[in-house]
């Protein structure tokens, strides 16, 4: 193994560094043309990072994902493909040589936030392999985006480190197209974040879907949305598929993103069909008069700002671009040829099996409660979260009294709850709320009764619960504050 040390700035300024790395990567193959393409792709990737970052380069890296593709596909070819990859590791500037780097303890590097992720370079024409980059390493929008993050473990020259990131890789177009790659990234995220899910390797994706494809699986010809959904179900998810024909499509899309669920997102035009993973959004919307609209709920007009209709830019991991691409909802394929007419036409939600209430039902129940409690001139924000996260928010909320906290913490909650917070325009930037509905995500009653959906509501200091004896809503005068701190959100 060879180890190089440089900075992003030097990599971009001096062609000798990438040339040397790519030579080692290609193991002396007569690959002059591929080398130029690889250098261009690496340059495009590194151009999105802060120039002062340190880069450690380790050669002869055995990457599990590329290794799986190598064994399933590339080793069978006539032309020789190298077995090893090269790995770049990125750090905040804190040392000036490999020797100095080796003087530091792992704990210092990890705890002081020096490690910012890694990028695996594959010996392929599409060389951007598995990578996990902390948004702080990105040059421009790192303080603007809020995304789903998992802790992803790695090593660098013997140091065992971890980074909080959303996994990304480019497609190789033979073993993995955008569809398989989106599945891989999604399961890599969930598998690293939650013990109940496992990451997946490319050959496992193709083998699992072998019975569901009419033709051969290699070389890949992509997947339909049904096939993507089947695979996610086989890996322990319950899925929901939404299509743009749904009149609340955008609101539902945003609602699930606000819920911290990465979505496999389909972008279609007449000559274009692409799948990406939507992993977050840019900053919170600025609430102004123009954000409000007249919402008709059962014939009554309510002057409301619906939070999930007021977010227009999202963060996606697109396997044809470096990680964390910001897209405009209305122009999701900007930068692609022949895709001016492309729009988001579908998305798949990878849901936990114990979420029975979909977003549309949570939104409609919220609307019914808004009407019931005559709420007006407020912004309404609906999202899903775990009761564990919500309880953590309650116990750390310094705008609630100890008694308020006890009252909320003793509520019986299922594993997941839908939360609808509402607040006036003046409280939006202060991140305060005047009220909240806590809804039972295990409820999906076909009887249509809204009683069962509600666990508790807090409305301007009063509470609304179901009276267990009468089965009716009872409102109590309570000492909940008129305003309290809002839930911080599922995106980080």
């Amino acid at each position, binding site marked *: 193994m060879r180890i190089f040390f440089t900075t992003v700035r030097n990599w971009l300024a001096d062609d000798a560094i990438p040339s040397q790395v790519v030579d080692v990567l290609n193991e002396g193959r007569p690959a002059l043309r591929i080398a130029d393409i690889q250098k261009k792709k690496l340059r495009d990737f590194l151009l999105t990072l802060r120039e002062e970052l340190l880069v450690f380069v380790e050669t002869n890296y055995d990457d599990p994902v590329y290794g799986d593709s190598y064994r399933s596909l590339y080793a069978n070819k006539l032309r020789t493909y190298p077995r090893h990859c090269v790995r770049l590791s990125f750090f905040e500037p804190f040392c000036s040589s490999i020797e100095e780097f080796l003087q530091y303890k792992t704990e210092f590097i990890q705890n002081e936030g020096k490690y910012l992720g890694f990028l695996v370079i594959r010996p392929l024409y599409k060389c951007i392999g598995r990578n996990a980059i902390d948004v702080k390493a990105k040059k421009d929008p790192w303080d603007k985006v809020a995304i789903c993050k998992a802790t992803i473990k790695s090593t660098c020259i013997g140091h065992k480190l971890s980074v909080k990131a959303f996994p990304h890789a480019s497609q190789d177009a033979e073993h993995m197209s955008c569809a398989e790659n989106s599945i891989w990234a999604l399961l890599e995220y969930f598998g690293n974040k939650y013990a109940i899910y496992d990451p997946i390797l490319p050959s496992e994706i193709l083998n699992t879907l072998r019975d569901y494809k009419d033709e051969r699986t290699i070389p890949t010809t*992509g997947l339909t*949305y049904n096939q993507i959904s089947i695979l996610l179900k086989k890996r322990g998810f319950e899925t929901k598929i939404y*299509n743009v*024909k749904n009149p609340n499509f955008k609101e539902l899309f945003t609602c699930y993103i606000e819920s911290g669920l990465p979505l496999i997102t389909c972008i279609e035009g007449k000559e274009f069909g692409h799948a990406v993973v939507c992993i977050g959004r840019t900053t919170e919307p600025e609430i102004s008069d123009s954000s409000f609209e007249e919402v008709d709920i059962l014939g009554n007009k309510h002057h409301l700002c619906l939070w999930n209709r007021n977010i227009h830019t999202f963060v996606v991991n697109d396997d044809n671009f470096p990680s964390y691409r910001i897209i405009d909802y209305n122009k999701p394929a900007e930068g692609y040829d022949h895709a001016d007419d492309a729009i988001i036409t579908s998305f798949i939600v990878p849901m936990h099996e114990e979420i029975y209430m*979909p977003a549309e039902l949570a939104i409609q129940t919220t609307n019914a409660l808004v009407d*019931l409690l005559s709420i007006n001139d407020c912004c309404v924000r609906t999202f899903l979260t775990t009761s564990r996260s919500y309880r953590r928010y309650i116990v750390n909320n310094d705008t609630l009294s100890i*008694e308020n906290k006890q*009252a909320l913490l003793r509520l019986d909650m299922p594993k997941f709850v839908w939360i609808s917070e509402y607040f006036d325009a003046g409280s939006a930037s202060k991140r305060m709320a005047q009220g909240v509905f806590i809804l039972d995500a295990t409820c999906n009653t076909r009887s249509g009764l809204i009683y069962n959906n509600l666990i508790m509501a807090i409305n301007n200091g009063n509470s609304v619960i179901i009276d267990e004896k009468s089965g009716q809503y009872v409102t109590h005068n*309570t000492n*909940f504050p008129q305003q309290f701190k809002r839930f911080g959100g599922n995106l980080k």
Partner: protein
Amino acid sequence: MEQFRSIDSYDRICTDEHEVLRIDRIDAYADYIRQAIRDSEKYSEDACKHASVIQFTYY
């Protein structure tokens, strides 16, 4: 020192007054939610039909 205590904390935060919230339009709300469920199922069916048609393979 209290070693073991059960608190019905909800009662402790309530003042004496409370009222049963009258939902005069309960049938209308029930229809509203039922319609939401029917719409959800209809749109899901449409989405699943579409999902088997397009093969996503842009490269």
